[in-house]
């Protein structure tokens, strides 16, 4: 399963997709991944930073949506306080 987590005041909003079903062309899984891609692009346009998280590996910043990632976390833009 892949998961996109978007940090927000509600905790985090999540979109999940089944990678195997996506590669099998399952319409629901494909729709989920398209929704995740749309949210990714929308949040990036607002200045959010995206990190790919894979178990046992350090977090890695990514610029484009990676549907093979185990988990992508989007954090809002940061500013000096």
């Amino acid at each position, binding site marked *: 399963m892949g998961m996109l*987590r978007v*940090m*927000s*005041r*509600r*905790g*985090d909003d999540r979109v999940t997709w089944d990678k195997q079903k996506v590669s099998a062309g399952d319409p629901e899984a494909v729709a989920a991944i398209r929704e995740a891609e749309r949210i990714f692009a929308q949040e990036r346009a607002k*200045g959010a*930073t995206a*990190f790919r*998280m894979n178990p046992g590996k*350090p*977090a*890695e*910043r990514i610029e484009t949506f990676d549907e093979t990632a185990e*988990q992508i*976390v989007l*954090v*809002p*833009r*940061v*500013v*000096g*306080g």
Partner: protein
Amino acid sequence: MSITLSWLFIVAALSPLVWILLLPHIKRWSQAERRAESLLHAVLTPEQCHQLRWCGYLEVPSPSAAGRVYRVPRARGSFVQVIENGKAIMRLCVQPVERLPDADVVVLHKLMIEANEEHYLQNANKFLCIDQMSLLL
């Protein structure tokens, strides 16, 4: 009458204190905090969770500078301390543009430091510690 007034006065005096003591627990019960806590536990190792719980901060080693550690506080509104070779050299003030649950803020700092340190430092407001300032003068 005077006893009643005395009790009212004591209750009024103690209620902000009770509120301050209970607030973190009430916040933890909220759904947003619970979701943020679940992400925090997914991102941190058990040792890091223990450190955050018992010390009130999380130490994140710098990926670029050996001997530098960022001490990320659990409490909102506190500064991130930069420690080099055991000495606090700087305090950083960085915050998200959107209000986030406390646990998410800790995750944000950790991810930014580990995978986007340069950008993190560029955005932070920096306050040199007094020892360092005296060296500059």
